[in-house]
């Protein structure tokens, strides 16, 4: 068994080849598109079912942003198939994205998804945002008891993609359309010039602009 590791922001996403509900998929199959890899504790459990319905509901919005979704739990592919069929039959929601069957926990271990303080046998609720160059750009970890917030996941993707596109940062509670933060100057000369550049500046280090 591999030693549990935690990916770090800015590192290449740990590689994998996985059995999923949509065939065998490699991480490299996603090169050129963004990917949200997320884990859930177990099939046929209530919080996970609400999350899967919610992920399915934002899938269209994610696709518009060039983002694919990929689920994972330590369950068999037959269990995944039975569960997504049940969700469709009972809740009327089709799960359009693949789910990894990580029975041997290899991928969960590689991504640090098993937190023994929570469970020795199930993954916690992780979200890894991986960009089109397969770099880990953001991570969210939630406990077994607490379902994730889809609006925050979309907001996070929007913020990361806006930062990449415009070379800016985003303030607390930012949402698309809000002002963004101009990176702080790193020389005295740039600090003086910054105040003359027409940005909305609170001070030399804190300037906002509209996109």
């Amino acid at each position, binding site marked *: 068994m591999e030693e549990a590791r935690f990916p770090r922001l800015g590192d290449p996403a740990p590689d994998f080849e996985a*059995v*999923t509900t*949509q*065939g*065998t*998929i*490699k991480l*490299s*199959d*996603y090169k*050129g*598109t963004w990917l949200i890899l997320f884990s859930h504790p177990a099939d046929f459990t209530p919080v996970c079912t609400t999350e899967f319905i919610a992920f399915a509901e934002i899938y269209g919005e994610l696709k518009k942003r060039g983002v*694919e979704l990929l689920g994972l739990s330590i369950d068999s*592919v037959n269990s995944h198939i039975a569960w997504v069929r049940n969700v469709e039959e009972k809740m009327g929601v089709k799960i359009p994205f693949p789910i990894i069957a990580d029975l041997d926990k290899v991928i969960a271990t590689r991504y640090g998804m098993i937190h023994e303080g929570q469970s020795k046998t199930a993954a916690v609720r992780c979200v890894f945002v991986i960009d089109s160059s397969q770099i880990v750009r953001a991570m969210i970890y939630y406990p077994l008891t607490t379902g994730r917030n889809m609006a925050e996941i979309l907001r996070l993707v929007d913020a990361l993609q806006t930062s990449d596109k415009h070379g800016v940062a985003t303030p607390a509670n930012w949402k698309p359309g809000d002002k963004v933060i101009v990176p702080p100057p790193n020389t005295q000369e740039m600090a003086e010039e910054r105040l003359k550049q027409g940005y909305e500046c609170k001070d030399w280090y804190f300037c906002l602009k509209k996109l």
Partner: protein
Amino acid sequence: MAACISPDGKPTQSGIKLLHALKSGAKSPEGVAQDSGLPLFRVRSGLRELAQAGFVDPKADGYELLPAGRELISSSP
């Protein structure tokens, strides 16, 4: 577990869709994704399966149909 090849070794509907996308000649996975409407990750994994099953040939500039793949789509709509 394969998505484009069924346990009897024949391509599934998704597999046949990918084979049809190669009818006009060799294409990159990106080109096949554009023509078939399938997500790029599905195209990449599907073409890999079809290559392992002997229906397509991976080339430097993309994938092209092998005789078994060409024969199969000539008999399917």
